[in-house]
């Protein structure tokens, strides 16, 4: 259980980091001109000064920055994320409502990118410098270079407008009510294009990493040994090379779980999905400090959890990590 202790230590180390991040975001948002009452006035199209004053008192904006920050941290210690100015609900509720769409989109596109990244990476490495390799690498480069929003819009034009196979946006069909399996399939249909859009970019990274890592491992001594003892090529690749080449991929997943939350702002906007990314964007524009800090807190938690799982996976893939050598 050395690995649990190791991962546990890293978990404990991330708590101060979390607080530093929250304080940083809090101070950063103080630098943005205007507060949530200004943003509200912008949305309403005007209002008088007395109303604005009342609202500032209501949102606790009449206090000093230090007092506001102290209030926030004190609430956080008691696991109270506060009240959202734009949604009029507790921040925890607002985030929980948005979490399913984000998690669904994130897991779907990460799994898609990871799985096909491995498949194409291995394929390219096995056929290195032949036409298969060139084709896969070129496609990877295209996916990597293409802006996500553009790809999303083009996918909508082709599959939703021209071919009419898939819906152009939204999380589920709202003009008819569904339940059970039919609802699940409906949501899956709605998530297909966003998953591909978000996933293709990461697929490109994964296949490049996988290809490189495979090529490196293929040249190591133990592979020569495996071949020398007469194993067939498939067995060599699957049993010996793949497992060793997977380590960098697993590292990347841990790092990119966080990036993907950010990258999904664009995809969520283009496909009108009710996720955390759009919520975060909205809270910045509306200067809804509590909600934004809540999302940062939540995302940081997600990243920490994913990294914890990655630590466990390391040990599974590479027993040397557990023995501490």
């Amino acid at each position, binding site marked *: 259980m050395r690995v649990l202790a190791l991962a546990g230590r890293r978990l404990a180390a991330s708590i101060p980091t979390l607080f530093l991040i929250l304080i940083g975001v809090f101070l950063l948002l103080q630098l*943005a*001109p205007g507060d949530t009452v*200004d943003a509200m006035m912008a949305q309403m199209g005007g209002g*008088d000064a007395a*109303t*604005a004053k009342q609202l500032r008192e209501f949102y606790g904006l009449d206090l000093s920055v230090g007092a506001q920050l102290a209030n926030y941290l004190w609430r956080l210690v008691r696991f109270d994320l506060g009240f959202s100015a734009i949604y009029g609900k507790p921040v925890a509720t607002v985030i929980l409502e948005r979490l399913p769409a984000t998690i669904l989109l994130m897991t779907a596109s990460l799994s898609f990118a990871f799985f096909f990244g491995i498949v194409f990476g291995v394929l390219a490495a096995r056929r290195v410098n032949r036409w298969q390799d060139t084709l896969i690498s070129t496609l990877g480069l295209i996916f990597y270079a293409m802006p996500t929003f553009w790809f999303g819009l083009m996918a909508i034009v082709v599959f939703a407008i021209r071919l009419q196979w898939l819906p152009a946006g*939204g999380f589920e069909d*709202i*003009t008819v009510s569904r339940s059970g399996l039919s609802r699940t399939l409906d949501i899956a249909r709605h998530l297909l294009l966003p998953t591909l859009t978000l996933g293709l970019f990461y697929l490109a990274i994964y296949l490049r990493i996988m290809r490189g890592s495979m090529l490196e491992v293929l040249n190591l001594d133990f592979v020569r040994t495996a071949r020398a003892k007469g194993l067939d090529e498939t067995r060599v690749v699957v049993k010996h090379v793949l497992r060793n080449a997977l380590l960098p991929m697993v590292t990347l997943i841990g790092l990119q779980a966080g990036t993907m939350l950010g990258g999904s702002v664009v995809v969520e906007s283009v496909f009108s999905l009710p996720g955390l990314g759009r919520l975060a964007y909205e809270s910045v524009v509306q*200067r809804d400090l509590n909600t934004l800090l809540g999302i940062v807190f939540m995302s940081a938690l997600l990243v920490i959890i994913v990294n914890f799982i990655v630590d466990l996976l390391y040990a599974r893939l590479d027993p040397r990590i557990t023995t501490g050598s």
Partner: protein
Amino acid sequence: MDMTRRAALLTSAAIASNVLFPQRSFAQETPRKGGVFTVHYGAEQRQLNPSLQASTGVYIIGGKIQEQLVDLASAGNTVGVLAESWEATPDGKTVTFKLRKGVTWHDGKDFTSADVQFTAMEMWKKILNYGSTLQLFLTAVDTPDPHTAIFRYERPMPLPLLLRALPDLGYISPRHLYEGKGDIRQNPVNLAPVGTGPFKFVQYERGQYVIADRNTNYWRPNAPYLDRIVWRVVTDRSAAAAQMEAGQIHYSPFSGLTISDLARLGKDPRFIVSTKGNEGNARTNTIEFNFRRKELADIRVRRAIAHALNIPFFIENFLGDFAKRGTGPIPSVSTDFYPADNGPQYPYDKAVAIKLLDEAGFKPGAGGTRFTLRLLPAPWGEDISLFATFIQQSLAEVGIRIEIVRNDGGGFLKSVYADHNFDLASGWHQYRNDPAVSTTVWYRSGQPVGAPWTNQWGWTDETMDKIIDDAATEVDAAKRKALYGDFVRRANSELPIWTPIEQIFLTAISAKARNHSNTPRWGSASWHDLWLAE
């Protein structure tokens, strides 16, 4: 998104055809009952009750669920909704509304004058933006019987002003769901509104959709036609256009799509793109001058800046037929107040601009630059952004260097209206059918610091203040109109703000919709007669 000259011209042609033939003739059709109408909802608000917040983002939903005392009919005249008739005493201090009988709230309770009294005193007067200014001198609403509401004012309230303001600022809320239920702003009913309107609120999923269903007890016979309205939250403009093409959205109001997408949809027979139904939502593009800069406090510099901008060129190349040359703070669609003489107009003339700047004593320095100004464009629309760039390039030619400082909504309002941290600002002035509602506050001195869309320019003019105050309480319609003529001419000759471009919102709607765009504020209207053809 940038637009080429070609795209703009194509747009113009497409829109022009729809302006000329906005609705194809359907006289022989009988209205169909049923159907789900889907609406593009671009910017979610914090609440949906139009008695508490006057903005199109609230009316587009709340205006189908709650109703006002009066509305504007197709010709721009006032028609009763919850009020059947109204009259004012000659001194203008008492206005009596006779209310409609047999109207019930969606929860089954009767609508009475007590609701009007509560809404007027607790919501319009205390919370509603622009309502608090309009009803500043409202002292009481008497309710002698359940169907009579008598508004009592401390100072004369011109009846035409009240009637033009109430379509926007006259929505009624149910007293029994608000009184004694704590802070009105935080009442959960604000996000699940209860009204007397043709549609009943069903569900609001933040970030996704709002649903309202047919009110089967609606007071108008045989209305409404639609079974359901669904508002889809789509924040990305291009994505909204794509969803319209894919048939997921029927209607995108208030210029919610990009200019180039509107141009494209306008050429598609499945859609109608038009300014019709938005006549009550006119706006002007503005240039605000900060008088705290000594250069801008000199009227010759302000006039020089106006002369240096080739407005017809900008409109023709960037806005197409959507816009025209503005003449002053009161737009030409305002038939009741548009004056015959608007005062000085500052046509494009670079030589005059240079001469004025020289006279003012700001000679070109090194590199030909006289002085540098910071311009803050408001983030409300792509036209403002284009206009800011146009100002920058045009003024460079007369030796004024412009730095453009971009902000988001909250940041813009704070910088301009609270911190006065700008030299030039550019945005929209929304005209609300009567100059006293939201236009004169741009010019009247003594506005509290931080109140958005008010005179924060550091400009005080006693003549102007007197005209504004006199007009606000003038009961005689002809005298009032004459006073607002003086107001426009004074605004144009002193030039604290310049309003060079006049625009009306654009609507994109499915060609299957019938009885649409038939009132001047149709996007905000109740849609009791809207129906969808097969």
